[in-house]
């Protein structure tokens, strides 16, 4: 009880100091100083944000390096004839600022997982694979496969250069909007979890 009163007292004192007009500092100093401090703070925030948006940061954890990154390395999004490749944030972090911040806030759950070792062995990762993949499928379904379309646009897709089956499928489902990329292309960059009950894989496609 005493501790609680002490905290209340401290808060009151802090508010009093915060609320009192500056006695010795000029308004110019406070305005310009506040502006400069804001630039430094914002620059620092963005720098840290971008640093956490690099693949090297993602695979700094062995959980990411040994599981999803190892999956990726065997796929066309890592190695192909022209050498263009997707890194983790290209697909998993939205480019739009508000969406990016929202995703970063969600990612605090991943920090929790790292601290408590939720997926710190391949077995644990495999056990959670379906749940984790499900989150990403849901996200990409909800935003109409936005991260796929950041590189692959339907307008620029020349289906005459595609195989007959792919061209037919894109014409029938993608161009008409009946389906979005992730509906058919699950597992394009990572190993699939148990697909029992997943539409298009083991059950008919969901009605559109």
């Amino acid at each position, binding site marked *: 009880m005493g501790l609680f009163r002490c905290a209340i007292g401290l808060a009151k004192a802090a508010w009093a100091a915060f609320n009192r007009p500056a006695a010795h500092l000029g308004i110019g100093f406070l305005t310009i100083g506040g502006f400069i401090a804001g630039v430094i703070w914002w620059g620092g925030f963005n720098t840290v944000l971008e640093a956490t948006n690099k693949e090297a940061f993602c695979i700094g954890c062995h959980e990411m390096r040994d599981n999803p990154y190892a999956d990726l390395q065997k*796929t*066309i999004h890592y190695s192909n004839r022209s050498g263009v490749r997707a890194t983790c944030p290209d697909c998993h972090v939205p480019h739009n600022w508000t969406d990016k911040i929202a995703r970063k806030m969600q990612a605090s759950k991943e920090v929790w997982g790292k601290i408590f070792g939720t997926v710190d062995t391949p077995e644990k990762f495999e056990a959670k694979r379906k749940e984790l993949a499900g989150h990403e499928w849901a996200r990409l379904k909800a935003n109409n496969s936005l991260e796929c379309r950041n590189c692959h646009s339907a307008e620029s897709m020349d289906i005459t250069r595609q*195989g*007959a*089956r792919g061209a037919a499928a894109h014409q029938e489902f993608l161009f008409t909007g009946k389906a979005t990329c992730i509906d058919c292309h699950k*597992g394009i960059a990572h*190993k*699939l*979890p*148990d*697909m029992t009950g997943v539409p*298009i*894989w*083991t059950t*008919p*496609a969901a009605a559109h």
Partner: protein
Amino acid sequence: MKQILRTTIVRAALLSAALLVTTLTALTAIPQSQAGSTAPVAETASGRDVAASGRPAFTGAEGLTVQEAPPIPKDVTDDRRRQRNYPEQPPVIPHSVAGYQLDLNANKCLTCHSREFTGDSQAPMVSVTHFQDRDGQVLGAVSPRRYFCMQCHVPQTEAQPRVQNTFKDMDSVIRQGSGTSGGGNN
């Protein structure tokens, strides 16, 4: 007394012989290992062959020649069904299967070839034989023993066979047989 003396002499002789053998072995062993480390196989015939021809001598003078690895042949991806060489032959796959996951978790092939999805995909349905277990019991879905498609069905490449195949299918054998036995119908 004489007996004792003789025994002693024999024992001493045996001991010195043993010592001599040990010493000789040690003396001969050391120079051999030293020679091995300083001057390796250069003195031997095989060592000279390697230096002269650039290839290991154990293949012989007319042995291996240096061959360029041929380029990796292209996959056959024309989606055209291939004729089977005999009725029981598992049909081959005329499309790319690169990156297809086929394991306990997922079966990419069945997303087109399973009965339920052939309407959308227009792919050939998995044969009815695949719905039977090994006792001939018909199941509702593809039997587990038929799950791993690429144990039998394989994609093709444009690679040319190193050895020509002289296989003749049954129909041509029958036609040939009836022709030589004077059937006169062909």
